[in-house]
């Protein structure tokens, strides 16, 4: 059985765990909040401009976090954009090198180098964001500023990223250097730094499998931790960008407050 086969056998389970977490911790609760907000509004009544603005503010530029300061915003934008772009390049790499392999995407060719460049650049952006987050978690521990920190999530994602770079470094160290490999940035630099210990056979396989399992487990973890905000925060913002829903929620809450409580006179 190949390493990729093991990965493919496990991934439906990990994604299942993610969905169960999303259902229990997000969808079931959102359903109640939707219910309190007058349920769905017809498509025709959706304010597309407000929806687009909310998406740009919350997801693209993350202006709400900018209000908390430059460092939290830099940390968050590096992590979220680094993670998102890395995820896209991961899918593209699997698709173009494993499922629909063609000449440009063979090892060392221009398409392959482009994918490696994208993977490594986004991975490095993510790594810098995580290191800032880790430093901030340590320096602000126990203070009011620590309210928004997520140390377990940061350490988990850091392990995923570091094992990914180490696996890639071992892979580059196992083959003779080529001029184009420089486009792989940190992966290639680590390969050169690790060349003295090459070849890595069993250890490369072990680190690769560890990285794949950690990355898959992290996806499952998203639904069961503070990381659920990856899905919930944009949804919530987009939801309340619609005036009709916002007003309906305020009305329901006010009606609830005005209702006489059991036992009151």
């Amino acid at each position: 059985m190949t390493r990729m086969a093991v990965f493919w056998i496990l991934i439906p389970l990990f994604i299942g765990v993610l969905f169960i977490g999303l259902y229990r911790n997000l969808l079931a609760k959102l359903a109640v909040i939707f219910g309190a907000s007058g349920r769905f509004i017809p498509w025709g009544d959706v304010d597309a401009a407000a929806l687009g603005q909310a998406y740009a503010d919350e997801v693209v530029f993350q202006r709400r976090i900018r209000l908390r300061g430059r460092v939290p915003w830099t940390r968050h934008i590096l992590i979220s954009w680094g993670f998102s772009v890395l995820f896209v390049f991961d899918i593209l790499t699997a698709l173009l090198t494993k499922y629909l392999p063609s000449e440009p995407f063979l090892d060392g060719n221009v398409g392959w180098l482009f994918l490696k460049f994208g993977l490594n650049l986004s991975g490095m952006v993510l790594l810098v964001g995580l290191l800032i987050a880790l430093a901030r978690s340590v320096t602000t521990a126990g203070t009011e500023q620590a309210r928004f920190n997520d140390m377990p999530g940061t350490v988990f994602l850091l392990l995923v990223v570091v094992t990914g770079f180490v696996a890639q470094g071992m892979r580059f160290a196992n083959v003779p250097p080529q001029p184009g490999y420089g486009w792989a940035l940190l992966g290639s630099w680590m390969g050169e730094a690790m060349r003295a210990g090459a070849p890595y056979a069993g250890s490369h396989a072990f680190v690769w499998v560890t990285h794949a399992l950690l990355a898959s487990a992290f996806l499952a973890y998203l639904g069961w931790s503070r990381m659920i905000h990856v899905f919930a925060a944009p949804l919530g913002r987009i939801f309340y960008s619609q005036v009709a829903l916002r007003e309906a929620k305020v009305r329901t809450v006010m009606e609830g407050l005005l209702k006489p409580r059991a036992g009151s006179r």
Partner: protein
Amino acid sequence: MSPALRRFAWWSFFVTEAGLVAAASAYVGVATRDFWLVLASAVVAAIAYVVAVLRTPAPDLGEATAASRRWFWF
């Protein structure tokens, strides 16, 4: 839960799992030993999901909004 949201919960899960099995079969082949293992993994995930959906109690509004505040959704 509204019927539309419940349908979304079912469809999003099953379409994703079917997509994963299809993607995996492009790599491990169809009707191979690894394919049956991928399918078994997806079936176990599906059983767990169905049980989770059927057994998850509906929270009250206070509980739902408390969760959103705790995890900084809004």
